[in-house]
């Protein structure tokens, strides 16, 4: 004779639903499905039954057992989820409290401009060359077609250093001497830019520093034309400033180029900004670099690097670049 299984199921469902935690459920699991449970005890009674009765009772017991297992399992799922949620809730963090501002360092704004320019010209097929900041008179002036005592030298307020003969060694006044060094270093084709630090005998103010930076360019190959120079300068402008920028060339004078030009770009207000000097490499300069001007032709250009840095960020005082105030440096 089976116990009242319907009643047992109802009681069990109530007990399982009331199990408050996993420990209570575990105890209930043992009580309802373990060795001393109602269903296990009842199964032991089966052997004493008649075959027909035993078959029905056995099936009935299996159903009840399965239902009990289902009740316990479902309740376990609910309790486990609750416990995980409680653990997670206990771990709750205020992330804004944790945001204390992780600091990285900052590359100097001049370095950033320098590398940006390198990347553009490398993309145009140029290599990057460098030369000494303390130069000899030949590379800075003589090889660049500045005759001794020529008034053109007055365009540069030169700082000389005590080394060798007086007047023989100087702080380079422009990056152009690297042109000569590049030509001396090997045969064309040359497609090179030469960024670097240059010096002038100038008192520091908002637009002048005794030390600043330039970037020089030199192309020497067979059949290079003035039109190539104009196109290259324009391509650079569009790459650096944006496609909408237009540029113009107008005649100028540098001893080391002829024809020489100033390169202007048009500002938003329609006025022109003088950006760079450029020109076809003077035959005397090619010769000074050991090249035959009847075979090779080329162009050179040069412009101020610091000013591009100032323009990009709206900095209004050149001296800030060299003052090294943390409040300035950490902005870029």
């Amino acid at each position: 004779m089976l116990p009242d299984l319907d009643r047992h199921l109802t009681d069990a469902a109530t007990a399982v639903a009331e199990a408050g935690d996993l420990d209570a459920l575990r105890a209930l699991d043992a009580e309802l499905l373990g060795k001393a449970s109602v269903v296990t005890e009842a199964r032991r009674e089966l052997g004493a039954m008649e075959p027909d009765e035993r078959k029905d009772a056995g099936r009935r017991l299996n159903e009840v057992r399965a239902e009990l297992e289902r009740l316990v399992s479902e309740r376990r799922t609910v309790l486990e989820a609750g416990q995980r949620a409680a653990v997670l809730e206990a771990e709750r963090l205020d992330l804004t409290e944790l945001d204390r501002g992780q600091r990285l360092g900052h590359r100097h704004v001049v370095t950033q401009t320098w590398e940006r320019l390198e990347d553009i010209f490398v993309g145009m097929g140029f290599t990057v060359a460098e030369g000494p900041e303390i130069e000899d008179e030949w590379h800075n002036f003589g090889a660049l077609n500045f005759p001794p005592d020529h008034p053109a030298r007055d365009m540069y307020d030169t700082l000389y250093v005590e080394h060798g003969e007086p007047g023989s060694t100087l702080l380079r006044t422009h990056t152009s001497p690297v042109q000569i060094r590049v030509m001396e270093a090997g045969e064309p084709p040359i497609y090179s830019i030469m960024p670097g630090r240059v010096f002038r005998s100038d008192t520091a103010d908002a637009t002048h520093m005794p030390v600043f930076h330039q970037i020089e360019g030199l192309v020497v190959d067979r059949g290079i034309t003035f039109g190539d120079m104009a196109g290259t300068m324009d391509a650079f402008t569009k790459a650096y400033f944006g496609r909408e920028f237009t540029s113009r060339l107008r005649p100028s004078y540098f001893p080391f180029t002829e024809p020489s030009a100033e390169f202007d770009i048009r500002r938003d207000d329609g006025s022109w900004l003088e950006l760079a000097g450029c020109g076809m490499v003077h035959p005397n300069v090619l010769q000074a670099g050991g090249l035959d001007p009847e075979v090779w032709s080329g162009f050179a250009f040069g412009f101020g690097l610091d000013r591009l840095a100032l323009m990009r960020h709206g900095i209004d005082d050149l001296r800030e670049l060299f003052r090294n105030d943390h409040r300035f440096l950490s902005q870029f």
Partner: protein
Amino acid sequence: MKVLLSWLREFAPVDGDPTEIGDQLSDLGLAVEEMTTIGGGLDGIVVARVLDLRPHPDADRIQLVDVDLGDGEALQICCGAFNMSVGDLVPLATLGTTMPNGMEIARRKMRGEWSNGMLCSSQEIGLGDDHDGIMLLGSGPDLGTPLVEALEIRPDVLYDLEVNPNRPDAMSVAGVARDLAARQGVPFSLPDPSPAEVGADAADRLAVDVVDPVLCGRFVARVLDGIAIGPSPRWLANRLTALGMRPINNVVDVSNYVMLELGQPNHTYDLDALAARSGSGAALRVRRAADGETVETLDGVVRTLSATDGVIADGDDVAVGIAGIMGGASTEIGDATTSVALEMAWWDPQSISTSSRRLGLRSEASARFERGADPEVADVAMRRFAELLAEAGATLAPGTVDVRGEVPDRSPVRVRTDRVNALLGTDLSRDEMAGLLAPIGFAAEPAVGDASSADLDVVVPSFRPDSATEIDVVEEVARMHGYGAIARTVPSSTITGGLTGYQHDRRAVRDTMVGLGLDEVMPVPFLAPGDLERAGLPADGITVANPLVAEESVMRASLRPGILKTLAYNASHRLHGLGVFEVGHVYRTPASPQPLPDEREHLAVGLGGRDAGGAVAVWSGLADALDCRGYELVADDPVGLHPTRTARIEVDGVSVGHVGEVDPGVLEAYGIGERVGWLEVDLEALLALPHGGRPYHRVSRYPSSDIDLAFEVDEGTPASAVRACLADAAGDLLADLSLFDVFRGAPVADGRRSLAFTLRFQADDRTLTDAEVAEVRTACIAAVEGSLPATLRG
């Protein structure tokens, strides 16, 4: 060079609005730096007389001026200038006037006193550069007369042009007009006056001897008589003022006018004064100066000359002027002058440039001569001078003294049509080129007189000394064709672009520093004397021969002073604990003579508020970024760095720099109150050594075994020695080795510390047995205990 549009139009009928003309000038290479409209905005400015001057009761820098506009009433004006006196005639901007700069004149109170208008400086009304005081008007005009009428001002446009050193011809109004006329395709002509010639022949009244024909390529002299010194006509004075020169008297003004107009500097001698200096009559002698010879120049300064300077001497060979730079005081014209000897010469540019630099004396004349004046313009300039001075009663004596020396060769220049097109990227015909050159005076004919020749022979005009070779003519063709008219092409580079290995690595260095939280700084590379010594460094910086200030007289031999100054500067603004780095050049006197100083690129790191440990961490981070293996830190005490907290960095046995801390004494000298961790590396040396190969090591798939070993080690024994000993003993089985704990204090004996290492063993081809691990462990212990003053802790 400043030019007036009205003056340009005397040479060529140039057309167009002023802005358009300005653009054309810029496009010709005569860049317009400023364009000013003259004579505009002067309505409402009238002539007034100063009646009284009184101090302002409440202000020191303003005075009260009563002026009369002709009605006899005193009108009070507040004025910040003090250069006028009672009775002076001055320009007054009356109430309601809009000034050329847009400012509106209204009645207003200044510190409690009414001002009923504004007295004007010449700059404020666009008639000159003088803004130091109120413009004083000569006597003459009636009170209340509009200023425009009183000064005979005509509306005009003033261009301030940037003239490059290769364009001496454009240092004259005529030269600018010639270029502009060529661009506009309108005719250009120089004046060709023919003043009447009266009196005795100049050749009989003045002797000229050119002793040095190299110095003086041409010396032309004429004589003018009947001069009455007085003020210039208003129109002429106005033009000089507009071009930035102060009117002096009619002779001086005409002299300047002719120079500005035609580019020929000239000099006037009082002929009687010159004649009186010598028994042999008026004579001029051109020679080089004797060393130490002196002459008093027009500015009243006695100049001592050297043998490279040129002088003009009198009949007794006493110098009366410095050739091409400045005349002398002794023969200066004065109020009593009636006859003048007028000199127009051509001086050797090189000589003038050298003298002018040596003497530190620049003049309008020297600026033109050193660039190269026109040796052929003197004849017309002489006649122009006489014409302009005729109004003052001057007459030109017949006869010209004209002595020629050496001037630059002007043989025709062969210009190859193909060459021009090849350099410019154009497709101009021979005759198109000739057509572009003709209007600027370059006479181009088919080469060797052969009409079928493809090339040109070009005779360069005397006023273009910069043009002497084919490439110079190429430039003129390009200029007259228009730079903007040349089609733009982009050459495709025939090489592969890219950075060098060094440049790549240098970027990696910067990226690493930034990743470690350091800011890049850029101190100037100039130091003051003593900066190196204060940083504990030898005073072997390269010195600047001509520094502007002492603070910039030494080139840095180390990045240390600049970084310490940076940290001190920031600390003074309460910015402490900064970590900074710099990549830059340092310069040293080479050990043995070489053409240039020893110049190298260094990396330096200064860590404010951090000790040597921080600096070592930066170094090891850098070594990892560069894959620089096999370095050693060797205890060292270089001057200026902390003697017990510094190590030399050796890579493959080569010293590349130091890491540690800055010496506290140095920090004190720089006013830094916190520790400074320090790293300075010779980047060129470091990057020349093997690094960055990054050879692949196969990752073992077999289990690893870890053991910990702690040794008690003598303080004199570096941890790196224990580490090296362990690595050596463990051999190929060592997969990782790290120092995880350092402990000092009981029970470890004084003068010793405990160093605890974790070693991970692993084989590429098998799982290590316990026996193998035990064996290598024993070997490690034996190696350390056997070769170092170290004992295993139990």
